[in-house]
């Protein structure tokens, strides 16, 4: 067997490994009710902030604790506890992606991604002055 063949086999093995771990090292987009079925797994939940319910952030008590209510894409509302600071511009967010687990009736989120379309696309021509 030529060296080039050995090299080829190693490459293919590594490439298959890359594909395999890629597919394993992912989380899944889910709704709150789906996340509740598997409380030990990490999920991405996409939804919108419920602006009518209270969101609580008391940085003087704990700067890394923020809670609010989110409605997922299937319409289920759930209390979310985010273990981070309240993101700047939180109220303006149009869409929220939470990363975390369901614990009891609360979704314990370790990270949050927000989409603020205003940042790039919003704004219509208006008369100044």
């Amino acid at each position, binding site marked *: 067997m030529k060296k080039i063949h050995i090299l080829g086999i190693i490459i293919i093995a590594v490439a298959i490994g*890359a594909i395999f771990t890629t597919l394993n090292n*992912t989380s899944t987009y889910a709704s709150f009710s789906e996340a509740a079925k598997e409380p030990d797994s990490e999920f991405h939940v996409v939804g919108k902030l419920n602006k009518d319910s209270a969101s609580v952030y008391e940085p003087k008590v*704990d*700067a890394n604790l923020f809670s609010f209510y989110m409605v997922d894409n299937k319409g289920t509302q759930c209390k979310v506890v985010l273990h981070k600071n309240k993101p*700047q511009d939180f109220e303006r967010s149009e869409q929220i992606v939470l990363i975390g687990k369901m614990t009891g009736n609360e979704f314990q989120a370790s990270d949050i991604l927000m989409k*603020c379309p*205003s940042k790039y696309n919003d704004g219509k021509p208006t008369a100044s002055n």
Partner: protein
Amino acid sequence: MEYIGEHLWVGKVGNVFVILSFVFALLASISYFFSAQEKESASSWKRIARVSFRIHGLSVIGIVVSLFIMLMNHYFEYEYVWHHSNKEMPIRYILSCFWEGQEGSFLLWTFWHVVIGIILQRSAKNWEAPVMTIISLVQAFLASMLLGIFVFEHRIGSNPFAVLLREHPDFSKIPLFSDPHYLEKLDGRGLNPLLQNYWMTIHPPTLFLGFALTVVPFAYAIAGLWKKQFNEWIKPALPWTFLGVAVLGVGVLMGGAWAYEALSFGGFWAWDPVENASLVPWLTLVGTAHLLLINKQKGQSLITAFFLAILTFILILYSTFLTRSGILGETSVHAFTDLGMSGQLLIYLFFFLLLGLFLMAKNWKYFPKQTEEEGIWSREFWMFVGAIVLLVSSFQIMFYTSMPVWNKLFSLNKAPAKDLISFYNNWQLPFAFITTLLIGVGQYFKYKDTDIKAFGKKMSLSLFISFALTFFMIYILQFHNNYYSLLLFSSIFAAVANADYMIRVMKGKVKKSGASIAHIGFGLVLLGALISTSKKDIISQNTSGKSIESLGKDFSNNDNILLTQGDTLPMGNYLVTYKGKRQEGINVYYDVDYFTKGKTGALTKEFTLSPLVQTNPKMGNIAEPDTRHFLTYDVYTHVTYADLESINQKKEATADEYTAAKNYTLKKGDTIFSSNAIIIYDSLSTNFDKTPYHLDEKDIAVKAYIRVLDITKKYEATPVYVIHNSAVQPISSKIDELGLQFMFWQIDPTKGTIQISLQEKKSNVRDFIVMQAMVFPYINILWMGCIIMALGTLLAIWERIKKSK
């Protein structure tokens, strides 16, 4: 309706240039094609082709100039100008506005191709016709991205000159446009404030020049296949390929430097899809460049060289598709929105991919057969292995980055892993380890075969120094991760071995050591990246005392510190004080002083950092970090939360006003906090001297005794609960020194609780911020390595061009 003050002539001129640039790129490609098929060199086809490409080039410059005129003069009647600029913007950001949009960035890319094409016209000699056929064809495709015309109801390209704001489908019904004088009142939407810095002026042109340079090895490879000159294309393509390596490498790291300086994700590299999209073609380009070197020296690894040269350019197109099609969605912070051109991009991608694969398949049987196998101790074998390692590494990055594409293709529902960065780091570390080892030994191997004893002798000094340095670094950095220690060693070894090669083998001749210098640079880049990332220290800790760990191990996130104005708190090796905020334009700066404590306990002010929050009513609030650079480490800070509401309110609060009352239900012994004191409810009494309160005899009165402690003194507040004619009429108690006022509202005898309310003077309530701070050790090694790598590569190219003349 007649609109007043519009400048429609610029758009018309620009539009003519757009059409000319497309038509003449196509014409140049066709005539270069026929010229390449002819035997004679200076035929009439060639003359037509040359002139066509020059007209194409002039048209592109015409487009650029027209767009500049529109931006400089604020012609907001054009959607592109309105979308990307406004009147307030300083003139130095005009360039940034120019390429903020997709159309502008395609234009920038096209412009660099024109520059490269003009140079090739003069220097490529026999290769001019076939190579320029390909480049002109690429140009025709790129120029079509600006056409903005409809063919069978499909729009081709997006034309910044043809879209008027008042005709834009989203805005056409706005009442503003029923006014013929609308332009006088109109201001642009403005450039995203995040992009208003000098990086946006220098990063895109560098990166796009890097992208543009990958077309040269691609065009040469295709030309080589087409003209069946399988080895001859390598020599002229080589310097261009290395130039691409230098420029694209700098461009990619510049993006990292920008992210580090202006974005607040806390680092220079986040494996964001957009970052990966430019890193991966760089990796394959480096692979291509080294395979071309092998082939030039030994005529081997030809097929792989062809494959990688073609793949690199395809990857550039694929990256463009990923970042421009909107497919990345929420996985990336800075993907462009879809302009409806992704289908067009995919067509180009598959066209050039199939062209390359078809030509390779067609010529497969003609490829010169490799008669002997590379020796195991030959330089070419290990260079080949290195190139393959880079290819596999880029495959891993690209496969994972393409997750949204797989989701779409196979209707999957996969989201990226939570700890994306360490996932990539763990995968890429072995590749980086092998690559740096190979970089270290590479030049000590000779082509064909190496005397292994002499090799070992030559290597021993570098190995010894590298081991010593590694152990020293492990000791001073307290490096406990064995996995990382391997890369620490190998990247030190890469730098040391090449420095040794330069000094002992090349006898210190700098001019001839371009390759060694570039390799030293690469070793340092990885070393700096490794140390600054793995030993990154978040020094801002949650000092509230409330345990977050109780909620579960995964959720410990003590990364933020709360700073109240005036207080001094310990943070890392420093004591920090939040002094206050100041507003400059749309930026709000938060000044934080850093002190160190001397032996006597006296505080010495070291420096001030002013992380900022940019407030833009149109685009939202964006935090930007502030970093203090030292030789061996950086202190990096950014504001994660600040009360921005109070900035917008006018300062009406006078010193005597009280805040809204806060109600508390307390049992005996309960403690509450005001912003300046600790408050403890001690006891109740009905038996007290009632004379100062002017009470009626029938009134029921209960006095509460409340202890109030601040840092220096103890106070007492005694609000009284009074029922007068069966109505509650409490008597307040004030502590003027602390600006506190207490009211006693209710007694609940069954629960043993009372309800009191507390008000504070507005002057009491101090501003606060929540901040994150981290120390990046030795990050300067990374930036230094980047500069050394680029300079070394440029030096090597320079020497090669000089030699070939």
